[in-house]
């Protein structure tokens, strides 16, 4: 294995003191400003849609709920879970991506690389082909199990080898397993002619988000994001390279296991709810690093806020573009994200 192909950016980095490349002030501003904008986004998202509802009505619907009013029903049962789902999913993907990129020092890494998306997709393909009558809630459960199995296999194979789990191995095992599971899903889809049904599910959409999903997911997601923040200092060390981290006295194996678990829970739950909008996990960490520097203590919380913002904005656009039809939210995220990412790529300052 050629070690240098792994060194992320693949450029000969000059070591600089971390302080110089971290911008706490910018990060604090992003956190505060981002949360304010996010709150506004949530409000707008709840009041706009196929039926426009005044913000005052939104307020009463949330705090003085009256089940006899249709608008209150729409907000309570459709729009609110949807936008909260968007917040959760966006934050989850972004944090998972940030951890993956930090752990593997590979700028292309995101949660999709852990075999999570492919595992979920494969589980869905099997469900659609062999048990077409499976109820919706079970689909979500199975896709989560598929995601978990995918990540478990990747992690297991990476750890089996002598020398343990290196970031390079994790990334390669993830890519190989994803290719395998995607191919199997494609085969099943072609044979049973269910490709389009799968595509509908997989195009990503928050439309079906239910309170029950949020109830099941939110404690996990919140706990895991807090865990990620707690782990952030160790991730920063790992992002300097495994030898450096070990030299600083870190137990790298433990950190990588914890990081992988966090990624699995966040990405697995999110994929199960919205399908593949994984691009969030790739671009948001890059954007955040560009804004706040290389200290993961700032990158992780800021990624969460920015990821949530992106998905909420994309979901809002998905409903606004062609009402009452929905545009696939994954496509909108790419539409917003791609130009942004292109700009960032041009500005890339060779750090991870």
């Amino acid at each position, binding site marked *: 294995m050629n070690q240098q192909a792994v060194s992320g*950016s693949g450029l000969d980095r000059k070591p600089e003191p971390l302080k110089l490349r971290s911008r706490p002030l910018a990060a604090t501003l992003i956190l505060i400003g981002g949360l304010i904008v996010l709150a506004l986004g949530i409000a707008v998202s709840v009041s706009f849609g196929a039926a426009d509802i005044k913000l005052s009505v939104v307020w009463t619907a949330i705090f003085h709920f009256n089940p006899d009013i249709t608008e209150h029903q729409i907000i309570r049962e459709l729009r609110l879970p949807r936008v909260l789902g968007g917040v959760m999913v966006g934050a989850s993907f972004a944090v998972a991506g940030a951890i993956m990129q930090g752990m593997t020092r590979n700028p292309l890494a995101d949660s999709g690389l852990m075999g999570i998306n492919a595992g979920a997709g494969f589980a869905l393909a099997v469900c659609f082909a062999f048990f077409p009558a499976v109820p919706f809630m079970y689909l979500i459960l199975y896709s989560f199990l598929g995601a978990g199995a995918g990540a478990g296999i990747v992690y297991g194979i990476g750890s089996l080898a002598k020398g343990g789990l290196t970031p390079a191995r994790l990334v390669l095992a993830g890519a190989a397993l994803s290719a*395998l599971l995607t191919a*199997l899903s494609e085969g099943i889809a072609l044979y049973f002619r269910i490709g389009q049904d799968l595509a*509908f599910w997989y195009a990503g959409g928050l439309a079906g988000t239910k309170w029950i999903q949020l109830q099941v997911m939110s404690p996990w997601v919140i706990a895991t994001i807090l865990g990620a923040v707690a782990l952030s200092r160790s991730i920063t060390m790992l992002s300097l390279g495994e030898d450096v981290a070990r030299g600083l006295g870190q137990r790298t194996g433990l950190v990588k296991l914890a990081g992988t678990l966090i990624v699995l829970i966040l990405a697995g739950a999110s994929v199960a709810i919205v399908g593949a909008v994984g691009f969030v996990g790739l671009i948001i960490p890059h954007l955040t690093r560009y804004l706040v520097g290389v200290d993961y203590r700032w990158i992780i919380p800021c990624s969460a806020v920015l990821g949530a913002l992106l998905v909420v904005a994309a979901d809002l656009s998905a409903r606004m573009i062609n009402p009452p039809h929905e545009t696939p939210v994954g496509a909108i995220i790419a539409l917003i994200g791609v130009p942004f990412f292109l700009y960032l790529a041009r500005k890339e300052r060779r750090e991870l």
Partner: protein
Amino acid sequence: MQSVKNPFSEEARLRKGLTVISVLAVLIVVMFIISVNTGYIRLTPQELLHTMLGRGTEKQELILFQFRLPRIVISLLIGAALAVSGAVMQGVFRNDLADPGILGINSGAGLMVMLLVSFYPTTSAAPVYLLPVIAFAGAAGTAALIYSLAYKRHEGIAPVRLLLTGVAVAAGMSAAMIVLTLRLDPEKYQFVATWLAGSIWGTSWKFVLTLLPWVVILLPYVFYKARVMNVLHLGEQTATGLGADVKREQFRLLAAAVGLAASSVAVSGGIGFVGLVGPHLARRLVGPKHQLMLPVSALLGALLVMAADTIGRWILQPSEVPTGIVVAVIGAPYFLYLLARAKS
């Protein structure tokens, strides 16, 4: 593998490389014989030999020369082309995950094919002979777009920038394809999905002839550049220090890789895994030096795609499984097994 006294000596490495190359060559010949025999109509080795020597029946000749041979030749060519293309990308970007897909080859070709199909009322009305042209144009056009987006006036191209730009553009194209997917009628969708999964459908000598010049010119060119690639692998600053014109070499190599990948995509759709895994396996077998690694990659890729194509024809007779799917299904587990066994 026998253990040599000093496994790191140049001589030992060369000997091992030659062993690997001869073993692969033998495997390819064996696979070729099996492959010619596989299909709806069997040909015994004896009949095969007779037909080869021009003494077969008319039917045997037709099957062999008009259907099977061109297809097998194409599978060998694209396998070699994709693997070497991947090796170049991994070398230039110095990133393990780089493969031809990174420069948007597959997504660009796929998007164009999808657009072409969606413009016609039925798949049968769509001019199928246009597909390779369209696919090639999409692939090469996307690569050019990515390159120009990543180009900066006074710096030229930085590999990281190119990599990230490629990912971004590919993601944009995939999103466009998702939107199109949801609008296609089921029959067209099935056609496009089959194409995207990677099926070798160009099974005539005409396609072999369109593909051949690319491979015959570009493969030796890349092999000839093996030493340059070794130097590039040391990192940009080191390579510049050693007197390499890094920017220009990167551009030439990438252009060659794009040519190889785009011409392959044109006749076979999106066969993705070969370009990723071929070079890795080759490195496992003969080490990172490109003089050996590139030819071994080419042989491995050719073997993998030919075997996958054969299995795809045989497993669900008389219908076919797209080669790209089979490639991943046989290639990935083996690759995972290697990863699990590897010494770091």
